[in-house]
């Protein structure tokens, strides 16, 4: 906490409470205690006072007790000599300021001083008043004054959109921008993102409201830009709006301050944008906003409060206008607004994928044949790769899509071109480990566009673009647009900014490919280092409980889900995106048996997840409490007692196995969430894990496996053989080409010297 800010906020609060007291005293003597006080068209009384204290103020005579409460929240300014904690004092002062400010506005309504008059001003829709003076008579638009407090009708319309996310948040803009042009651009940038703007305050008598008015910007409900008043005190209406949101849509009652403030912190994505010089009163009002979890961003040099605490992220951030990078006010405004969004954690939605061709998952399987092809990237004649990396929030401009090199028009019909798709993402919740998880989505995202075919990944990517798509106007930049939109819509929980660079310039592609390959390599090593002993939680996967109600997968770094689609990192990312979803962290707790793979946490979860059907699960054994299976397994493993080992049958293998059953017959035994020692469904990459049935002897127990596995994973299996100390190991494993019965199996294994025959009995 900055002592400077604390001092000024506390000083400002003291002054305002004093001012309110003086005003109230005068009003009581002039108008009497029975004079009604109210904001127009609201059922929430004076909303901040009602929310924070539960008091339903209806008359002037009830206000003194509010100011007594406000005064009790005041503190002396921090000492210059002695350090004391002053966060609490500052927040108290902020709250006192809000109570005082609302009292002042209520008194002003009594005197007809609110809404603030502004001759010649026309509201583009606004709160209506019962007084004909205020409404301009008849059906005329309300003219000659600003809006003042927001009425309940508008609150309902906007509040629901704030709660359900259609409206990402609101900006309480206080002060005056460095120029009229800057004011216009800032508001435009906010409007463009559907963020509601509340305007108040001034600097040396000039307000952002004046600035926008001078520039002919329409202000009012209709333009989502509401002019409250030209002083800082009128900013209280923003917090009245926030309080009423919590009361209306959060099921909360007046007098639940803690719940109301938390509701706003968690659900109403608002922030204060302080433009121009920040005086004592603005500091104290800002301290009031921080109580709601609304951070403050200033376009001038002020001390910052960066640690997280009351707000979700930073409390006070300074971004001096003249130091913002940008060629013009538009670019500067964009940066400033981006910063606000970032500091508050506002989630901006991208509704549609802006491409000139139909888009949807229905097009994912589409094939573009050579004859229908406009151009291709990758494949035989060109290189194509994709690489997604994490960047820092301030390094990226969200939505920026850059194409470096030739465009589609430079490619001959049915020709090819090198292409690199570089995606940089940043987000508060983003982790480097999520890079490959997100990168793998490119395949689905790009394929969703009609007329685009995407195959492969990393540096074996191969993309085809159909003539029809090209004729419809699909160009290189649209790859970026798709990715920007989809990463926001599908991964908004972890991704705040997405920037895409499409490179077709061959030398540049080459250079970037080196970088990407280094990253791929790094990730491979990272995955290899990611062992079960290196983490303290595994993940559950209950995705398949819809048809196997009592099955639960426990996914560890060294044992991926049996479907092959979810590894530990996928589950981790899935949990970040969807905290109530099917992948929940399982805290391991005490290890019970490191060999078979029992932890207190995994056993406890197995019981809960299987609804009591499974008592214990051994992570590394097929013989004792093996993990259950739904039915989605890539492979089925089964004990062959005669051979002292196991066989592994691939889903793609329809031939007879030494167990006397084909895959489909075996599937009936392995699936359904039943624990059957000696039978297990697994993902094929589990075969190469060092933890592959390690309690039972590991890979050397495999006496038979479908040839499709041997061929498809030849490289990986070779490494397993080396790890097991027998380079010929895979050749000693039988497959359906050599053996289909158990009678044939034994002599074959003996002939080929399979190690299982001399291992300890598996049973």
């Amino acid at each position, binding site marked *: 906490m900055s002592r400077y800010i604390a001092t000024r906020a506390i000083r400002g609060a003291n002054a305002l409470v004093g001012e309110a007291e003086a005003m109230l005293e005068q009003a009581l003597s002039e108008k009497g205690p029975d004079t009604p006080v109210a904001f127009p068209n609201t059922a929430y009384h004076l909303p901040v006072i009602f929310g924070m204290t539960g008091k339903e103020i209806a008359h002037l005579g009830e206000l003194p007790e509010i100011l007594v409460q406000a005064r009790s929240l005041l503190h002396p300014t921090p000492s210059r000599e002695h350090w004391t904690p002053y966060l609490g004092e500052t927040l108290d002062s902020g709250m006192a300021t809000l109570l005082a400010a609302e009292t002042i506005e209520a008194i002003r309504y009594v005197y007809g001083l609110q809404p603030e008059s502004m001759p010649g001003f026309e509201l583009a829709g606004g709160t209506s008043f019962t007084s004909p003076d205020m409404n301009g008579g008849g059906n005329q638009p309300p003219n000659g004054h600003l809006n003042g407090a927001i009425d309940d009708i508008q609150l*309902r319309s906007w*509040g*629901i959109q704030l*709660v*359900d*996310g*259609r409206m990402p948040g609101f900006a309480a803009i206080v002060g005056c921008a460095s120029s009229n042009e800057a004011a216009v651009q800032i508001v435009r940038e906010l409007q463009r993102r559907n963020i509601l703007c509340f305007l108040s305050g001034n600097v040396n008598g000039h307000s952002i409201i004046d600035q926008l008015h001078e520039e002919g910007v329409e202000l009012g409900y209709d333009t989502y830009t509401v002019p409250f008043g030209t002083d800082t005190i009128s900013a209280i209406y923003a917090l009245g709006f926030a309080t009423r949101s919590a009361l*209306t*849509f*959060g*099921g*909360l009652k007046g007098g639940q301050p803690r719940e109301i403030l938390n*509701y706003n912190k968690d659900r109403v994505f608002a922030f204060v944008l302080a433009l121009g010089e920040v005086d004592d009163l603005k500091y104290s009002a800002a301290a009031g906003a921080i109580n709601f979890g609304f951070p403050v961003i200033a376009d001038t040099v002020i001390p910052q409060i960066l640690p997280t605490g009351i707000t979700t992220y930073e409390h006070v951030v300074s971004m001096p206008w003249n130091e913002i990078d940008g060629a013009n006010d538009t670019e500067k405004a964009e940066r400033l607004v981006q910063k606000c969004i970032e500091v508050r954690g506002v989630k901006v939605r991208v509704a549609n994928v802006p491409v000139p061709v139909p888009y949807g998952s229905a097009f994912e399987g589409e094939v573009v044949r050579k004859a229908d092809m406009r151009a291709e990237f990758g494949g035989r004649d060109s290189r194509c790769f994709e690489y997604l990396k994490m960047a820092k929030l301030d390094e990226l401009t969200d939505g920026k899509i850059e194409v470096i090199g030739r465009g589609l028009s430079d490619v001959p019909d049915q020709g090819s071109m090198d292409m690199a798709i570089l995606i940089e993402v940043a987000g508060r919740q983003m982790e480097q480990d999520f890079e490959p998880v997100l990168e793998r989505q490119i395949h689905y995202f790009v394929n969703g566009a009609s007329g685009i075919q995407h195959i492969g990944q990393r540096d074996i990517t191969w993309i085809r673009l159909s003539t029809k798509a090209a004729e419809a106007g699909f160009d290189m930049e649209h790859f970026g647009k798709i990715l920007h939109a989809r990463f926001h819509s599908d991964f908004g929980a972890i991704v705040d900014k997405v920037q895409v660079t499409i490179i077709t310039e061959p030398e540049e592609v080459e250079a970037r490919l080196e970088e990407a390959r280094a990253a791929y390599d790094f990730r491979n090593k990272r995955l290899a280092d990611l062992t079960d002993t290196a983490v303290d939680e595994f993940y559950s996967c*209950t995705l398949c*409980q*819809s048809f196997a*109600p009592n099955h639960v997968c426990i996914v560890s770094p060294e044992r991926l889900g049996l479907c092959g689609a979810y590894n530990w990192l996928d589950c981790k990312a899935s949990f970040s995106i969807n905290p*109530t*979803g*099917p992948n929940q962290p399982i805290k391991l707790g005490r290890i019970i048996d490191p060999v078979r793979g029992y932890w207190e946490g995994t056993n406890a979860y197995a019981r809960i997840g299987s*609804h009591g059907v499974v008592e214990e699960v051994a992570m590394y054994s097929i013989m004792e409490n093996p993990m259950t299976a739904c039915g989605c397994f890539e492979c089925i493993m089964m004990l062959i007692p005669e051979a002292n080992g196991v066989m592994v049958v691939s889903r793609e293998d329809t031939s007879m196995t030494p167990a006397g059953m084909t895959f489909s017959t075996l599937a009936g035994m392995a699936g359904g969430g039943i624990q059957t020692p000696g039978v297990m469904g697994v993902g094929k990459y589990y075969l190469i894990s060092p933890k592959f049935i390690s309690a039972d002897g590991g890979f050397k127990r495999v006496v038979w496996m479908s040839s499709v596995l041997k061929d498809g994973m030849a490289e990986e299996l070779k490494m397993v053989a080396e790890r097991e100390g027998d380079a010929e190991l895979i050749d000693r494993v039988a497959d359906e080409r050599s053996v289909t019965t158990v009678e044939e199996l034994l002599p074959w294994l003996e002939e080929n010297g399979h190690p299982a025959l001399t291992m300890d009995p598996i049973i």
Partner: protein
Amino acid sequence: MPVEIPKDSWPGSVNTVTLGATGDQGGSRTSTVTIGGEQSLPFMHFENPTPHRPVIAMEVAAARPADWSAVLLEAWGSTLDDPAVWARACEDAGADLIVLQFGLKGSDDGPVSAEFAVEVVKEVMDSTGLPLVVLGPGQAEIDNSILVPIADATKGERIVLGLCEEGNYRTIVAAAMANDHLVLGKTPMDVNLAKQLNILMTDMGLPLDRIVMDPTTGALGYGIEYGYSVMERLRLAALQGDAMTQLPMLVTPGVETWKTKESKVGAGIPDEWGEWAERGVNWETLTAVALIEAGADVVVLRHPQSLVRVRAAIAELTASETA
């Protein structure tokens, strides 16, 4: 020889939910309907009495339905042209609740609009005193566009608003919370998805006694066993104490059965299928009764004769409790 009936004792129970509000309670209904509260599997009265019998809701379409079976068109006749008249007829026929179903069309075949929707709801509320369930066409954006204004226009009536699904639950829940209504959460036949939606809805602050869930079901011969099994598992979990499954269930056998070939087609079918209208009513009745035995608290029906038969079945199932 006396036979000892084994009794289960469950730690959990289903939430009690009251639909509709009378004049005293801030609404305008002449009666309210209370559902839920079960402490045992359905009709295990020797363990615990059935606290609230399953109730029967009749479906009323906001605009004359274009795709309903001729059997239904004949049964209801011209009442189908006016939802208010139709709702009144349902009340007279003995329905406990009205489910007002909006489609994509409004008046004069135009797209359904907020004004049309509010007007129809008001007309229906004027003609019947029964509590209401109001359902949008099931497309998140359109549901939002009509349910929010309906909620605003009927504050305090404790209407059940639906469909509240993963894609729009925030909007519907917020509208319900702002106007003292209830919501119907619908998920596609999956225990975990149902639980997840319930978690998300309650996380917004909506009390559990204002949520009813539709776990989705199928008609007899068209996946009823799948739906039955999901309902059964939800109810077992509820009785075992899982708070996020302890919601009363509303299911729609009317919608499901009247789109099957057996109920919809009257010509070019084998003689042994029997008389068309009888077959349709049987299909709806059997489906509804099976779902009631799976734990349904509300069944939504279409044919007036099914109402009579399902009512009789409920009476039989609870006969020993009332004797």
